Structures are given as C-alpha cells and as structure tokens.
C-alpha cells in the first residue's frame, strides 16, 4: 500500500511569477513552471498583448530569456505594435534574450500532397529555445495553424508533441487560442482537450455600451487560485489586473481619531472619525457635500497631512472658487504640497482605468486623506456590476493603504432616496452621514444625521444645519418631524418624537 510519504517527492510544479500586474495575486504565485498554460479569448480580447508582456516582463524583470512563436502576425508587426508601450523587442532580440519563430502563413501558394508533420516548426522552436537559453515561451495563436494546414487531427497531435518537448526543456509557456463566444465552448478546434492542465480565459464583453475586459483562471491543475472573473485594463504600461476581492481585510483598526473639519460634526461622532475609516456623505445636489469635502480637506492640510482630492463633477477653477468662498485657500495648500487636486470627467475612461489611475495617484502622492466628489458620478459610465466592482476595489484599496477617505454620493431626489452608490457602498463604509432637505411648514430646511459609525458611539438625532460663508453649522435636533430620512417629513405629536431616535439605530 502506498503511504502518503511516497507522494512527497511528487510536488506540484512550482509557480513562477510573470511580472504582469495583478496576475501573481490572481494565480497565487504565477504560472506552473515547465508547463504550458492555455490562454483562450475571442478576437480582440488581449491575448497577443498578454503573450508579449509575459515574455517582456520575464526577460526584463526576471532575467528569463524567451521565445515568441507567432502564427498570425509577422514578428516585425509585433515588434512595431508594442513599441508604443515602450517595449523594445528588437533590442532584446539583439541582446540574445528573445528569439522569434515566424510561423505566420506565407504569401506563396502551398499545396498539400500526402501525409506530413510539423517537424519544421518543432525544429525551429527547439533551435530558438537553445539559441537564447529560453525559460519562457509564448505561442500566439495556435488556432491559426488550423487554417494553414488541413489535417486538424495532425495539428492537435503536433501541438501536444511540442508541449511535451517544452516540458522536457523546462520551458514555461503560454499558448493562446481563439474562441468564438464569450461564454461558449472553451476554445475553437478543441485545443483545451489536450492542454487542459492550466486554462486562462480572457474576455472582452460589451456591457451597457461599455467594453469590459476580464480575466478568469479556469484551472491550474494541482493548485489553488482565485476564482471568478477579474477586470483588467490595457494601458500605456501594459496589462493591469485588478484582483478586487483578493484584498484581505486583515489590517488592524485604528483607534486614532481625526477631525472632519467641523467641530459640531466631530461632537456628533464622539470626537471625530477613525483614521482608517471610509466616510460616506450622501445628499441631494446642493446639499452641502462639496462643502463637507472642502472642510475635510482643509482640516487635513491644517494638520500637515496630505490630501488627494478627486473631483468628478466640478472643474479645478470651480473647486478653488467654492473653497475660497468659505475662506479656504486651496492654492496655498497645493503650493505647499499638501493638496493635490485631480479633476476628471467620469466619461474620460472606463472604471477599471479610473481605478488604476486613482491607485497610481495614491502611490505617487501617498496621501493620508482622500476625497472623492462624487462616487455616484461614476454610476453613469458603467453597468451596475462594473460599478460595484469599482467601489469594492476602491474601498479595499483605501483600507489597504490606510487612507482616511471621504466619499460623497448624490441622491437622486432632493429629499433623499437611495442611490446605486449607497446600495453598493454602505456596507463597506465605516461612517455614513446623510444630508437631507426637510420641508417643514412650506420652508426648506437642511438636516444631517449620522446613521452609522463602526466601533464608536454617535449621535442618533437628526440635526438641522445651515450653510453660510463661513461653512456648515450644525444646530439643534429637529422636533416633532418624522420620516426625514425616508424623504417624506411629516409632523408628529410630541409624544411620538421620542421614537425618532430609535429609527436610526444601526
């Protein structure tokens, strides 16, 4: 009988990193060494760029020479296409770190007369691997072989033979193949039937008029990996995968409190919000959200903290003017390097790109606080699912970086009501303040309530507040009014007002 000790020598293949942003996180370490992974995707899903980046990063960052076997484009076309990313493949080729095998169809007529095999390809790959001492290889895309040669059964056998040879040479490879439908059979020509150990799927799905790229690790034999589809982008630095759910919430929570920029609000939150909190301010348009953002930013700068202000609704000039009207000199803080304002139209790019940009801004500026005005502006450029991922990715990143963040969310109606933002964000945020208009006896008044604060006591009453040129002033709790939060304030008898507080328990 076999003892489990007999299997100790049979370790699963070690994983080697690829250098592609986020890929190691997704695969929990990279690709299995000495194996060939199949990467399938429809046309335009990013297979070629992934294959090229895999080699480029491997050669330049991990010092592993590579071979690129191309069955579709000519090597010179690939070299030219990735120049704009700053990847000089021809330079690597000259240095003897990269070799191409040109398997693209020839411009001359080819006839078939009797049986043949792909020994020519085999010999060329072997020669290229030996000439540069390759550890990595990419084949793009084997589907094209099925158009060059008529004998499909033979092509399958030969691909299998090449994979076995690569394994024997200790080369870690990615092989790409086409698929016709995003959620159909794994690949055309059934390539996965013999490259089944490691399968990665790239998708480019049109969803609500927006293109959404995702990557899914279907399987890595004998090992664990992160499940599900993860969005990725192709930017000027190549592929970036955003492993949204992989960020662990393991960091210790802070007991250190910071001011919100408003003394009364600090009092309502029992002394300010925790340094690692995410603070959501929800309110209708013109309800005081931008003012709270401004005060929050000013408070940070006064204490010598750096603030990154991301504005998606107003221009820089508008922000500066608004701040100045409340006596806050943003330009001075900017000059001192404590404030950075980034204005961007939500429509300027996809949400994945926005998230990537935010992460890069944070890495470059390393702020202690961040303001995003408003998160809900992003709703209009994405599908609900896409937005949800964006919000989760954003908040988990803030948590990871321990940035005290204030997000604003615009409610659809003046009197409140829940927006998509709140539906997705409220469970993730630590503190939620609602700003609402309250109509009482024909007069529009403003109300503020803290409806949630993790790990701390907070005031449960709804207070009235006013806005003037000095800022926001929180006054007394409303008396004899109910259903403010629900958006339908109505008078109530003095007896019932005592119940008001109970309605806002979290």
């Amino acid at each position, binding site marked *: 009988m076999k003892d489990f000790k007999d299997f100790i020598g049979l370790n699963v293949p070690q994983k080697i990193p690829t250098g592609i942003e986020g890929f190691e996180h997704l695969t929990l370490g990279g690709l299995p060494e000495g194996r060939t992974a199949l990467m399938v995707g429809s046309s335009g899903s990013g297979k070629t760029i992934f294959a090229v980046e895999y080699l480029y990063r491997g050669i330049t960052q991990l010092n592993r020479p590579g071979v690129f076997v191309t069955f579709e484009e000519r090597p010179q076309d690939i070299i030219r296409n990735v120049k704009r990313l700053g990847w000089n493949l021809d330079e690597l080729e000259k240095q003897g770190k990269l070799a191409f095998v040109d398997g693209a169809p020839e411009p001359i007529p080819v006839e*078939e007369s*009797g049986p*043949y095999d792909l020994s020519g390809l085999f010999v060329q790959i072997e020669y290229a691997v030996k000439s540069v001492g390759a550890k990595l290889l990419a084949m793009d895309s084997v589907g094209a072989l099925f158009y*060059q040669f008529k004998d499909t059964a033979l092509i399958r056998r030969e691909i299998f033979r090449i994979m076995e040879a690569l394994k024997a040479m200790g080369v870690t490879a990615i092989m790409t193949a086409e698929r016709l439908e995003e959620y159909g059979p794994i690949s055309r020509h059934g390539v996965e039937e013999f490259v089944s150990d490691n399968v990665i799927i790239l998708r480019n799905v049109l969803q609500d008029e927006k293109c959404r790229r995702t990557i899914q690790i279907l399987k890595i034999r004998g090992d664990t990996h992160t499940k599900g589809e993860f969005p990725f982008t192709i930017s000027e630095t190549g592929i970036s995968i955003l492993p949204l759910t992989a960020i662990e919430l393991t960091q210790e929570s802070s007991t250190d409190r910071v001011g919100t920029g408003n003394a009364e609000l600090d009092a309502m939150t029992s002394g300010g919000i925790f340094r690692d909190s995410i603070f959501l301010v929800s309110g209708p348009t013109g309800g005081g959200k931008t003012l709270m953002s401004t005060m929050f930013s000013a408070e940070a700068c006064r204490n010598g903290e750096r603030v990154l202000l991301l504005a998606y609704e107003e221009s820089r000039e508008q922000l500066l003017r608004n701040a100045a009207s409340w006596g806050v000199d943003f330009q001075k803080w900017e000059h001192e390097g404590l404030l950075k304002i980034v204005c961007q139209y939500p429509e300027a790019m996809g949400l994945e790109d926005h998230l990537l940009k935010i992460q890069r801004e944070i890495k470059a500026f390393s702020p202690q606080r961040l303001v995003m005005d408003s998160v809900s502006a992003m709703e209009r450029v994405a599908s609900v699912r896409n937005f949800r991922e964006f919000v989760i990715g954003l908040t988990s990143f803030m948590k990871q970086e321990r940035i005290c963040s204030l997000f604003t969310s615009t409610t659809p109606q003046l009197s409140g009501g829940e927006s998509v933002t709140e539906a997705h964000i409220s469970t993730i945020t630590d503190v939620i303040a609602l700003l609402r208009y309250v109509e009482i006896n024909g007069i529009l008044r403003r109300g503020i309530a803290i409806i949630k604060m993790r790990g701390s006591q907070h005031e449960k009453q709804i207070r009235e507040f006013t806005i003037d040129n000095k800022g926001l002033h929180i006054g007394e709790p409303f008396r004899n009014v109910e259903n403010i939060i629900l958006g339908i304030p109505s008078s109530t008898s003095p007896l019932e007002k005592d119940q008001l507080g109970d309605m806002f328990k979290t």
Partner: protein
Amino acid sequence: MKQKINLKLFVSGDSGNSARAIRHLQEIVVDPSADQVMFEIIDILQLPELAIEHHILATPALVRISPPPAQKIIGDLSKTKQLLSLLGQAGGTE
C-alpha cells in the same frame, strides 16, 4: 528554351514521410539533367537554420526556388498531379 527548375526538398531525418517524398520526387525527376530540373535534399534536423530561412513548418516540403513564382508542396508527394503542376508551370511554353 526551358528555364532550369531549382527545387529544394526539406525532410526531417529518416522518417517514413521523408523517405517516401524523396522516392516520389526521384520517380518523377528520373534524369535531373535531361529534365532541366535540379533538386537538393535538406535534412532540417541537421540544418535547422535552413528551416528558418525557408520558413519550413511542415515536412516533407518541396519548395520551388526558381524560376518565380515561388511555390511549395507539403506532404510525401504521393499525389503526382500537384508535383507535375509545380514542375509543369515552370516549364513555361509547353
């Protein structure tokens, strides 16, 4: 006057397909000098550089180097029709 036909036959070692391709080519081109056909047999296992240079993925492969246009037949050349057409087209005026 016929232009001389220059062929290269790429084979891989002594595989069955390779041996058959050589035999089939020799059967057609009995007398290279009389037929004005010149051919060279190249083993890509020995000379992988030539496989790269001539873009050989499949073997056996018969390539007409000259006269133009370039043409290629892959397989063991068991279908003589294609082989003849490759030779015949080069013959020009016939």
